[in-house]
Structures are given as structure tokens and as C-alpha cells.
């Protein structure tokens, strides 16, 4: 294999790899702004300067491919001076409003300025200022902070498939904006904020909520659709503040759609049912878990019972439900429900050729693998029990009594009689299978709220009267 030397270390590389990737493998981090592994290389920011032996000038590492016998220095005096000069240029117009900027703490400009920049500045002239256009519901723009890396322009072109961000004017007056100042159209707008190396494009949803360094991070999987994008839940004090994508080159690469990014909001919806409740007339009244479980137990002994299982549950929950039903309710039927019109994984196609899938639940494949048939049309039985993880679309139900176990919002369950609250995907561990058949783990980020219980726990209490008495 071909070899080159970076900072005295010999590294192997495959032809065509650029120096940033090769250096990363040698344990050398090269500061970058415009380079992003998921986007094309433009070598605009001039931050990744390295010195290559036998080349007269400094080279940008992102646009220089490694070659056999190349000797690269990343910490020489010339490189340091070059990077310091670049940093000084980039900071000429930067407002240094880190105290009010949401990017502070995870900002490339801060990191690289600290790592490669000078502590002093010679610039004393007035900085340029802009009036910002409204970028829609997702992104808040602040052009003053921009360093024109054009990552956002390339992301729109290459990943989101829509050319909506452009650079107009030139030189000091350059303006990165949308065409004709329109609002953003793409359903992947949240990524603009992730890839922006400064605080130019930030999330409106996260605006001033928390500082980046205060958040705890839990690696989990998005439950928005059957794609199973890897994501990170950022939370503090049992409340979730935002979700960001994690790198997984086999599934979502570096990206994530807005639907999945903001999906967590329903788990913190004030209308979510957090206590066992029973319908009295038109209103809900709180009951104890014991009363709720007794109702569930006595109703499901009826002859004609249908158990419905949302395909947004984890494999563990599904198999626990299947075990319970096959053992204790021999006459009852167990069917799955998920997205209207997408009953099997064969019908589950890509929705927009980017990330989104047609199935809006995470574990359709898992339900199929467990051999649970899908519900066709209306759910018709004397008693219907609905197990749901929070995202599966409820089917039309025709029954004398309907009992829900899981996550429900008040407005969704007007026809239900009893609700036993369960855990949302942010509150439980489990396994889901995505549309490619890849098993992935959900991890608990926040603790269950109020009186919510996990479905396996509910089933255990249902079967075991004694345990219920002890826990009550």
C-alpha cells in the first residue's frame, strides 16, 4: 500500500484520499472551515494550510491528495504563520458576539481561533453589518457572523437537492442568502445549522434555550421513519433541548430531516397523557394503576378481543406483547398498525430519494420479522387494546371498549375508554430494525415522567396480581 509521512509519522492511504482524512488517521487534526467530509471540496477558507516538501508554497490539505512518498508538515513555522494570517482575515468582520451566539461552545471559529489564531488583532476599522432576511421557521440567520465557507450552498445543491442558498456580490460585500430572499423550502433545513462553522445559521427551535456546553448527550436512533437515522439527543435536567444527527455512513451519512429532528417535541407536549385515566362522560378522570390494570384484565377476558400493536414499539416490547397474548388470550387476535397505506416493508419506499421513508414508524421490519400481521382497514372487535410507542398513526376503531397502553396525546384518543401511559422512545432502551434490516439500539436519554410505565412492566403487573399488590 502507498505510504506518506505526516509530521514524521508514516501513514498508509488509498489513492485519491485527501490529506485531511489521511492526517486524521495519523492522529493529526487539521483545522478546517469549508471542508466537510460529506460535501465537495472547494478550498475556499484557506484554513487547512500544510507544508509539503518540494512544493514551493503552502498547500490546502483538503484539495491536496496524498501521494507516494509525500512528506507533510502541519506544525512548521510557515504553516503556523499561514493559519494565523487566515484567522486574522476571517475575524476582520466577525462581530465577536459569542456571549449571545447560540453556536458558542461548539463553534469551529472559536476552536480554530483558539488553536491557530493570534490573541491580538491589528484591525481597528468599522465592521460590515447586514440586515438579515427571514429564513423560515427552522433557521435564524445572522449574516454578520458569516465567514463565507459556502457549506450551506453546497449542502443545498448536493444533499438536499435544492439550490436555494446563493452568494451574491463580491469581496467584502459578499452576502450568503436565499434566492430573492425567499424562505427556505427544504425539509432538511436543520442541517444548515449543524454544518455552519459559525453562528450564522442557527436553529430557531433552540434559540437561547441552553448553552451548548451544558447539554448532556445520549446516542440513540431517530424513530421518525423506517430509515433509522443515527442521532444524538441533547438534554439537561430531564428535558430534551434538541436532537442532532450522528455520523453513520451506511444509513444517514451526516444528515437528518427536520421531521425527525423536531419529532421529540411530542414527548414533552403538555397534552400527553402521563397518568392512568378513565373516560367519565366526555372528560378524563385520573385512576390508580391498580384500577387501570384491573380494567384491562377484566375487559380482555371478553370473547372477541383484538390486540393492536404499533410498529413504533421496540422489538423487546413487541415480543413481550406477543408472548402475553399467545399464552393468555388464545382466542384473541394480534395485529400491527403503523402508517396508513404502508402495511408491509415491500410498500415502504423512499419518500424523497434523500432520507425520508414512507413508513413513519421505526420498526415496521421488526414487526414483520416477529411474524405479526398488519391490520387491514378498520379495527373491528368487542374490545380493542392498542399498544403504541407514540408515533404510529391510529387506525379507525369500531368497538364497545377501547383501551390504550403507551404514549397518547389527549386529542388523539377521544374515542378511547381507558389509557395506561407508557414510555416514549426517548425514555426507554430497546432495539429497532430499519428498512435495510439493520438492528440498532435506542438508548434512554431522560427518565419516565410522572406515572408512565414501560410496556413489559405493565404486562408483568397484569399477569402477576401479587407483584401488583407489592408495588401498589
Amino acid at each position, binding site marked *: 500500500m502507498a505510504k506518506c509521512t505526516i509530521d514524521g509519522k508514516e501513514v498508509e492511504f488509498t489513492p485519491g484520499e485527501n490529506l485531511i482524512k489521511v492526517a486524521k488517521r495519523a492522529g493529526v487534526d487539521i483545522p478546517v472551515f469549508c471542508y466537510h467530509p460529506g460535501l465537495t471540496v472547494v478550498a475556499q477558507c484557506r484554513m487547512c494550510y500544510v507544508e509539503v516538501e518540494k512544493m514551493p508554497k503552502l498547500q490546502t490539505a483538503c484539495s491536496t491528495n496524498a501521494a507516494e512518498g509525500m512528506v507533510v508538515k502541519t506544525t512548521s513555522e510557515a504553516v503556523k504563520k499561514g493559519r494565523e494570517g487566515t484567522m486574522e482575515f476571517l475575524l476582520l468582520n466577525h462581530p465577536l458576539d*459569542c*456571549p*449571545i451566539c447560540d453556536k458558542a461552545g461548539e463553534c469551529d471559529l472559536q476552536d480554530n481561533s483558539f488553536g491557530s489564531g493570534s490573541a491580538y488583532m491589528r484591525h481597528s476599522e468599522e465592521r460590515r453589518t447586514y440586515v438579515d432576511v427571514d429564513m423560515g421557521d427552522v433557521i435564524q440567520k445572522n449574516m454578520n457572523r458569516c465567514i463565507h465557507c459556502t457549506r450551506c450552498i453546497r449542502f443545498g445543491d448536493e444533499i438536499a437537492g435544492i439550490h436555494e442558498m446563493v452568494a451574491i456580490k463580491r469581496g467584502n460585500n459578499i452576502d450568503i442568502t436565499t434566492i430573492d430572499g425567499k424562505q427556505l423550502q427544504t425539509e432538511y433545513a436543520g442541517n444548515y445549522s449543524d454544518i455552519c462553522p459559525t453562528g450564522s445559521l442557527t436553529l430557531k427551535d433552540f*434559540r*437561547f*434555550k*441552553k*448553552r451548548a*456546553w*451544558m447539554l448532556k448527550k445520549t446516542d440513540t436512533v431517530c424513530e421518525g421513519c423506517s430509515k433509522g437515522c443515527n442521532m444524538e439527543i441533547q438534554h439537561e435536567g430531564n428535558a430534551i433541548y434538541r436532537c442532532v444527527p450522528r455520523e453513520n455512513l451506511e444509513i444517514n451519512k451526516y444528515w437528518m430531516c427536520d421531521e425527525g429532528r423536531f419529532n421529540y417535541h411530542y414527548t414533552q407536549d403538555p397534552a400527553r397523557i402521563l397518568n392512568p385515566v378513565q373516560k367519565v362522560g366526555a372528560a378524563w378522570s385520573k385512576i390508580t394503576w391498580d384500577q387501570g390494570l384491573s380494567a384491562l384484565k377484566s375487559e380482555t377476558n371478553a370473547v372477541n378481543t383484538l390486540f393492536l400493536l404499533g410498529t413504533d414499539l421496540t422489538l423487546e416490547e413487541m415480543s413481550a406483547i406477543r408472548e402475553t397474548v399467545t399464552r393468555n388470550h388464545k382466542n384473541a387476535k394480534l395485529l400491527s398498525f403503523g402508517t396508513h397505506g404502508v402495511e408491509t416493508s415491500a410498500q415502504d419506499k423512499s419518500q424523497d430519494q434523500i432520507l425520508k421513508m414512507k413508513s413513519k414508524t421505526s420498526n415496521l421490519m421488526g414487526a414483520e420479522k416477529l411474524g405479526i400481521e398488519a391490520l387491514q382497514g378498520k379495527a373491528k372487535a368487542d374490545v380493542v387494546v392498542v399498544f403504541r410507542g407514540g408515533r404510529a398513526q391510529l387506525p379507525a376503531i369500531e368497538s364497545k371498549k377501547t383501551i390504550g397502553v403507551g404514549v397518547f396525546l389527549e386529542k388523539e384518543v377521544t374515542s378511547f375508554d381507558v389509557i395506561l401511559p407508557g414510555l416514549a422512545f426517548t425514555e426507554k432502551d430497546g432495539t429497532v430494525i430499519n428498512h435495510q434490516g439493520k438492528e440498532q439500539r435506542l438508548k434512554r436519554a431522560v427518565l419516565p415522567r410522572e406515572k408512565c410505565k414501560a410496556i413489559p412492566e405493565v404486562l408483568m403487573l397484569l399477569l402477576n396480581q401479587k407483584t401488583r399488590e407489592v408495588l401498589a
Partner: protein
Amino acid sequence: MLAQRKPGFWNRIYLVEVIRGLSITMKNFLFHKKVTLQFPEQRRDYSTKFRGQHYIKSVNGVENCTACMLCPTVCPAECIHIVAGEREDKEKYPVKFEIDSLRCCFCGMCEEACPKDAIKLSNIYEMSQQNRTVYEKDFLLEQRGNK
């Protein structure tokens, strides 16, 4: 084993020691400068670096604070609670700024961390209170003991 010594006559009556002790007391009482103050009327001068009750500096009625959250981050007692918001004349400002005065250990790290010269510790040291007191934003903005 320790040999036990019986105290002699002069030791047993203690008179000499009592007189010697009292003479020191009287010497201090009559001839030395007093160390106490008549508190409310007389006050001790403290250094300008003294770390007392907090206040948020404001200029022309607008608070310096931009709710950057550096003070709650650096606070070892975790006694500062800020909620940030946006208003017409200021991009980011603290909607809520609370200091739990009982948790505060007056280390002054918040003052040191503040990039906007907003939170400061004044010279005020009379902070006795009968119940747990949380300094609210309005109270902190009164410029009490402005340095």
C-alpha cells in the same frame, strides 16, 4: 507511670495566679485600643475588592447582562439561575436572573467570568435574613452599592 505531685500551698490557694491573670485583663481593658465597633453608628472600612451582595450593573437603565450563562457555568455553588429571552432593543437578555443567596459562597468567580461587566459583588455585607432569600432580577438591578 507518671509520678503524681501534690500541689504546694501557694498553688492550692490560686491567689497569685488569679492576680496575675486579672492584671493582664485590666491592662488590656484600661490601656489598649478597643477592637470592637459601635456597629450601626460606626462602620469598618473594607477594601474595594470586598465581595458582598450581588448586583447587575446597568447603563442608562439597560442591564449589561446578555444571559451568556458563563456565571452559572463557573459558579461552584450552582446558585445562579438564568432564563434567556429576546426583546426589541436587545437581542438577548435575561428574562429571569436569580441568585440563591443562601447557596452562594461569595467566591466572586461570576464577577471574574462575566464578559460584559454585568454581575458584580458590592461592598454590602449586611445580608442577614429570616428566611431563604432568592435575589430576583429586579432586586439585583437596583444598583445597590454600585462600584
